Each structure stands twice: as structure tokens, then as C-alpha cells.
């Protein structure tokens, strides 16, 4: 049975491709028509071809299990998610605005803390922030930028409004999958790229390299850029190795680097020691330097913070940038944008209840079954409560957790995440999606064309993380004007 869009329905949700009258949206017209022209057999063939391509290209991610960690093939849905260009242009401007404000905010926190003195941002939130690094006070990274690479998660509610769900300013991952998804789609549906204008995504790694090179403390010379990975057992190791390879730079581990008596960073090569200018680090702050942070870290480089503070090496993202990557800070982003840029946010925040505020906390405790509760400093979807899907016992456990440590929790209304048609057992079914664009900040700001669309492959599930049963889709920004 071929696809009949009339029978496709996503009740109560905004669907990215199909409108309320079961008609393809304008930008998705060509794709939907094409998919409907395929027989079941054709569709199955495309799916198999995609799976084979992923296997052959070796696109994997690592899952932690009791029996050690294993590489798994990346779960991918062949039906792209489409965003019209005119809508994306607004989103892109909103992301640039947001990251610009966040960088000003971080820089302020490590210098004069004007925003605290002006009573916009509460001092107690800052005091209790687990990602504020006193070691960074007074440091001035180049261009005033701390969060060079940001991955912001966007979702769309049932009325079609796009919200920012969170900003990942520490070591956001996923961009390699965004790039590889496009390669796979081009192999599976080459004909679709001929007749419409799907904007390319491939220049990300060039932009990334240029941004990193611009941070070099030795401008003029050919900068020595490296990617610093915690190693093969990290879940994002594939991405670390992929990015290093695409940029043509060395992929190093902590043990490959050392800081000399001159407070410069060197890597150990067969030629001897070679100076390093820029480190794209994919290691969390606390493991970066046993001298400055956790003394038991074997992943980092002793003296790295000394070298960074002396201005002899650039770190991207800068240590301490995670202070703005906190779900409590998140709630203040509209005020932060207003304060530093004197602008209204172009993309909305999801309304958030801060459990540290008594009034909010009482509301949250009384309405746990309706809300999503998130710990302030977890990522990957861990430690979350999705109220409507949780048992009374879980509600009770979270009520206790919140009362014990209110600063650590925020709550948000359960959004009806938008859906996008997804091929499930050869039937087109709606599945919930989000979107993670990546924003590069250096002398200029760059936003990826679209981003990584993550999809909850389980029916009804809202959890899109790959470690918990999520998959991904290619994301098309389609220009429907003048074509």
C-alpha cells in the first residue's frame, strides 16, 4: 500500500510536513508527492539503502551498558524534516541574538558582574551555580567570546510557535550526524535535490576551522589547531574523530599534550614538541586540568588553565562558559537579552517555573502530573520527570528531590512537541521531533543551515536522545520563493 497522506494524522500536534487538512505544507509538497509515488517495495529499498550506507560509512555512537560500551549504528529515518527558508531566516536571527547576549552575560559574570549589581540576575543563583568557575574570573578570551560553539535545542508547540528548550554551551554534540545525515539522504533520494532548492549544510567544518583559527594567540602564523577528546570510550568519540578529520587537524588526548615552563602548550610528535595554539576541547571543564580542577583527572593536561590564562592558548569553548548552560539561568535569558542588547527575544523561551521561588515551587509541587521537571545541570535527558507519563511513585520521589534542593530544579508545562512523518514498519506515522542548530561565535556569528533533527522513534515518546531510543532525520531548509 502506497502512502496516502489523507490517512496520515497527528491529532493535537503541529506536524512539520502535513497541515491540519492532511495536505502537505508548501515547502514539503515535492517531497510528499514523491514519497506517495513510491511503492512499498521502493520505500523498503530506500530504507535498506540508507541503513547500508550508515553501516558502510561507519556512523556510530557509543552506548554505555553493563557489559562495557559498544558502538551502535546511528538510527536514522529516511523522511527529511522540512523548514521553509523564510521561517528559518527568523529563527537564525533569533539564535544569533541569543548567543550574542549569552556571551556578553558570561563575560560580565567573570568581570564586573554588572547584571548582578543591577539586580537583574539574582546573586544567590550565581553563588549556587555549579558551573561557575572562580578560576576564570578576570580572564578575557579573544573577541570577548566564551561559548564559541553552542547547540540550542528548539521545539515547536501545537500552535506552531518555536521555543528554545535549552542552550548547550559546554561541549554540545551532534553536528557530525547532521552532516552525515545529509550525505545519506543524497545517496537515497538524489532525484529530490534536482528539482528544488534545498540549502546545503556542508560548509560547517570549514566555518568551524576558520572560527577556531581566528582564536589563535599567534595570528599571522599558520595556527596549530587540535581537537581534544577524552578518548574512545566517550559517547561522542565518533564525532571528535570526524571533526578532526574533516578539518584536517590532529585529534589529541590529554596525554599527547603538555604545558612547558614557558606556559605554552605543546603536543608530543615524532619530531619532538610542537606548540599548540587552539584547542577545540571536548572534555568537560572539571577534567581539563588536574592542577586547577579535579586532581584525579587523567583526561586533561596539567597546567592547561595556566597557559590559557596567560593567553598562550585558546580553548573553545572557554572554561566556565557552562555557567550560562544551566536550566535556572535559562529562565532568565529573556531578561539577559533585554539587559545587554536592549532587544526583545526573537525566539521565545518555554515558560519556566523556578523551584527556588516559593510561589513557583508550590505551584510545581501541586501540579507535578502536568509538568516536566528538569534538574539544572544534567544533559542527555537524564534525571528528568515527564509528569503526564510518570507513576505516582515517581511524582513522590521528585517532590522530595525538589524540596531537598529547590535551586536545582525547574519545571515547564508539557509541550505538545511537533511531529514529522516517520517511516515505521513501512507505514508513515507521526513521531515527535526537536531541532538542534549549532551556532559558531568568533569575530562573526554563523548558524548551521537547519541543524540536527532528533526524533523519538517510539510511538508517543517525547524523549529524542540517542542514548534513550531516539533517532534522527535530515533537515531541509527549502527556498520556495523564486524557484
Amino acid at each position: 500500500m502506497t502512502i496516502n497522506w489523507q490517512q496520515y494524522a497527528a491529532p493535537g500536534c503541529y506536524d512539520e510536513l502535513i497541515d491540519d487538512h492532511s495536505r502537505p505544507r508548501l515547502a514539503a509538497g515535492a517531497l510528499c508527492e514523491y514519497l506517495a509515488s513510491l511503492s512499498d517495495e521502493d520505500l523498503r529499498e530506500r530504507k535498506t539503502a540508507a541503513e547500508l550506507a550508515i553501516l558502510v560509512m561507519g556512523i556510530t555512537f557509543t552506548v554505555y551498558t553493563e557489559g562495557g560500551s559498544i558502538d551502535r549504528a546511528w538510527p536514522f529515518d529516511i523522511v527529511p524534516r522540512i523548514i521553509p527558508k523564510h521561517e528559518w531566516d527568523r529563527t537564525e536571527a533569533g539564535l544569533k541574538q541569543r548567543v550574542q547576549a549569552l556571551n556578553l552575560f558570561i563575560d560580565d559574570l567573570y568581570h564586573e558582574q554588572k547584571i548582578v549589581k543591577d539586580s537583574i540576575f539574582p546573586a544567590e543563583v550565581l553563588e549556587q551555580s555549579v558551573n561557575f568557575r572562580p578560576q576564570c574570573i578576570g580572564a578575557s578570551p579573544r573577541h570577548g567570546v566564551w561559548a564559541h560553539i553552542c547547540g540550542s535545542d528548539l521545539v515547536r508547540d501545537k500552535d506552531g510557535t518555536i521555543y528554545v528548550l535549552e542552550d548547550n554551551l559546554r561541549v554540545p554534540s551532534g553536528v557530525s550526524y547532521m552532516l552525515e545525515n545529509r550525505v545519506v539522504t543524497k545517496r537515497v533520494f538524489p532525484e529530490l535535490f534536482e528539482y528544488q532548492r534545498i540549502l546545503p549544510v556542508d560548509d560547517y567544518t570549514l566555518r568551524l576551522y576558520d572560527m577556531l583559527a581566528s582564536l589563535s594567540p599567534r595570528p599571522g602564523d599558520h595556527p596549530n589547531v587540535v581537537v581534544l577528546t577524552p578518548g574512545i570510550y566517550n559517547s561522542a568519540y565518533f564525532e571528535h574523530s570526524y571533526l578532526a578529520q574533516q578539518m584536517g587537524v590532529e585529534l589529541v588526548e590529554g596525554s599527547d599534550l603538555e604545558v612547558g615552563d614557558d606556559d605554552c602548550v605543546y603536543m608530543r610528535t615524532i619530531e619532538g614538541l610542537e606548540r599548540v595554539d587552539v584547542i577545540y576541547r571536548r572534555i568537560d571543564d572539571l577534567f581539563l586540568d588536574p592542577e586547577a580542577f579535579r586532581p584525579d583527572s587523567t583526561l586533561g593536561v596539567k597546567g592547561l588553565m595556566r597557559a590559557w590564562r596567560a593567553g598562550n592558548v585558546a580553548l573553545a569553548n572557554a572554561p566556565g562558559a557552562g555557567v550560562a548552560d544551566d536550566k535556572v539561568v535559562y529562565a532568565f535569558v529573556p531578561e539577559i537579552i533585554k539587559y545587554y542588547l536592549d532587544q526583545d527575544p526573537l525566539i521565545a523561551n518555554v515558560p519556566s517555573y523556578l523551584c527556588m521561588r516559593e510561589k513557583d515551587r508550590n505551584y510545581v509541587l501541586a501540579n507535578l502530573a502536568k509538568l516536566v521537571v528538569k534538574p539544572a545541570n544534567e544533559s542527555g535527558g537524564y534525571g528528568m520527570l515527564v509528569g503526564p507519563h510518570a507513576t505516582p511513585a515517581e511524582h513522590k520521589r521528585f517532590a522530595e528531590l525538589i524540596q531537598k534542593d529547590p535551586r536545582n530544579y525547574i519545571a515547564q508545562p508539557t509541550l505538545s512537541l511537533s511531529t514529522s512523518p516517520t517511516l515505521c514498519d513501512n507505514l508513515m506515522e507521526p513521531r515527535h521531533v526537536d531541532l538542534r542548530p549549532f551556532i559558531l561565535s568568533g569575530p562573526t556569528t554563523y548558524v548551521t543551515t537547519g541543524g540536527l533533527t532528533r526524533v523519538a522513534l517510539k510511538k508517543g515518546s517525547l524523549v529524542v536522545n540517542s542514548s534513550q531510543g531516539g533517532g534522527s532525520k535530515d533537515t531541509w531548509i527549502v527556498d520556495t520563493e523564486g524557484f
Partner: protein
Amino acid sequence: MLSRVAQNIYWMARYIERAEDTARLINVNSNLLLDLPRDTSFGWLPLIFIMGAEKLFFEKDPNRLADEATVIKFLISDREHSGSIISSLACARENLRTTRDAVPQEAWEQINGLYIYARDHVPTRRGRYEFLRRVIQGAQQVNGLLVGAMSRTAAYEFAWLGRYLERADMTTRIVDVRSASLLARPKQTSSQTPPATVSEQAEQDPFESIQWMSVLKSLSAYQMYRQQVRLRVRGPDVLKFLLQNELFPRSTVFCLKQLETRLSDLPRNSAAKAAIASLKQQLCDAALPELANEGLHGFIDHLQIGFGEIHDQIAATYFSH
């Protein structure tokens, strides 16, 4: 190039070669045993000594029986023995896993596949030859992929440094099998008056030629030997061929010369080159006809110390800092 990456590639290549040559070692011994008369005391134990693994082998039980099944298991599938085929393949894979980008994708797939094959097939006595053949062939395929698809950068040189150093070492160990059997030759021979000349000895020992043929065959050297040395297969000639021949790619001198060539494109190579030159000189000066008769084992020990020194020089120059 990062020291860590150079080191990983070097060891990856060494371990692959070690797996291959261990397979060859087991083959030569199997063949020798089939050819020898039943009353010889020569058995499987010498292989443990040749691999330098006697300490580990007897660690738990000083009276451990070194029969065929035990020794074979120790050399092929014992994970606690770091020199076993399975351990060598696992180490090769592990070294490459962290530096996959440095070699062509197909080489990684080949090494991964070879490891999985060895892991999933514990050979029976009947299946042993086929198993060892697959290991040898698999290692040769890795070679081929590197030669055919890898740019001649420093990474390539390190792979071949590892491979040729291991091969030089293992060729001498395989030759040593014959010296072990020499020590334990059939009783009726050893009780006779020692022969006056080397050639007389060869005439007297009916197994002499057959045994050396086995050694040659296990190194894929028999055909090449016959092309270059047209006389009958005699101990001193075989030794000369396997240790001093400059054209055969598994001979020790050939391997040492390759090490020199590989090093010449790398920076800071003088210490390692000096160690190689010194060992090569000693090897060329050796009086092999006499050694074939007596003292071969000691000479091979001496060579192996030399290989160790070359490795130490390479490691000190490139892998530390």
C-alpha cells in the same frame, strides 16, 4: 605526527606480524613432528622457550604438561598469554581502534574481521591448519591494503618499522625451532662419534634435509630458496638464506635493511640507525656453517637482544619526548 599515533601504528603492525609468524611457527613444528621418528623426545615444549614464555607457562603449575593440546592452546587461544595469536590480534585491533583514521578504512575492517574470526573459531586438531592459514592470509591482506592504499607518510613508515622488526625477530625464532630439534636429535645419532665435517653430518642424518625444508616452507621460502640455491637443502645454506639473504623478504638481513630505509625518511633517526648498522654488521660477519652445527641458539639469543635495542632506540626517539 603525534607520538601516540606513531606508537599505536607501530604496535598494530608488530602485533599483526606476530600473529602471522606465530601461526608459521606452529606450522613448522607440526610438520617437523610428522616427519620425525616416533622415539624422539623432541615435542612441543621448545616452542614455549622460543617464544620466551616459559615463566608464564609454568607460573601456576611448575609440572604443567607441555603436550600438544596444551601448548597449542597456549599459543593460539590463551588470552592470558600476551604472545598468543588471539592476544596479538586483540592488541593489534585495540591499538588501531584508537587511531582508526591513520590507516585506510579497509585495513581496519580486515583487522577487525580477522580478530573476530580468531575469537569465534577455536581450532580443532583437524581444523588447525586451515585456521593458521586464514590467520597468515589475513595478515598478508592487511599488508596488501597498506601498500596499495596508504600514502607514504610517516604513519606508513611506522607501520613498516613495526612489521619488519617483528619479522626479523620472529624469523630467527622460527629458525631456532630447528636448533631446538638439533639439541634433541634421535638417540642413535647423538651416541655416535661426531662427524668430521658439516657435509658429512648432513649425509649421516636422514632427517636433516626434510627438517630444513619444513622451516623453509613455513616461511614461504622454499620455492625462493630453490631458485637461488640450486643444491640440495642443507642446514648451513638454509641458515645463510634465512639470516643473510638480501633478496628474500623474510630474511633477517632483508628486514634490517628495510628498517634502515624506513627510518631514512623520518626525523632524528641517527641513534636507531646506528643500532641497526651494528646488528647488521654482526649478522653479516657470523660464521654460519659452524653455527649450523653448534651454538645457533646462543647466536639467536644474541640477535634478539639486538632487536630489543633497536626497539628501545625507536621508542626513546619517537614515542616518548
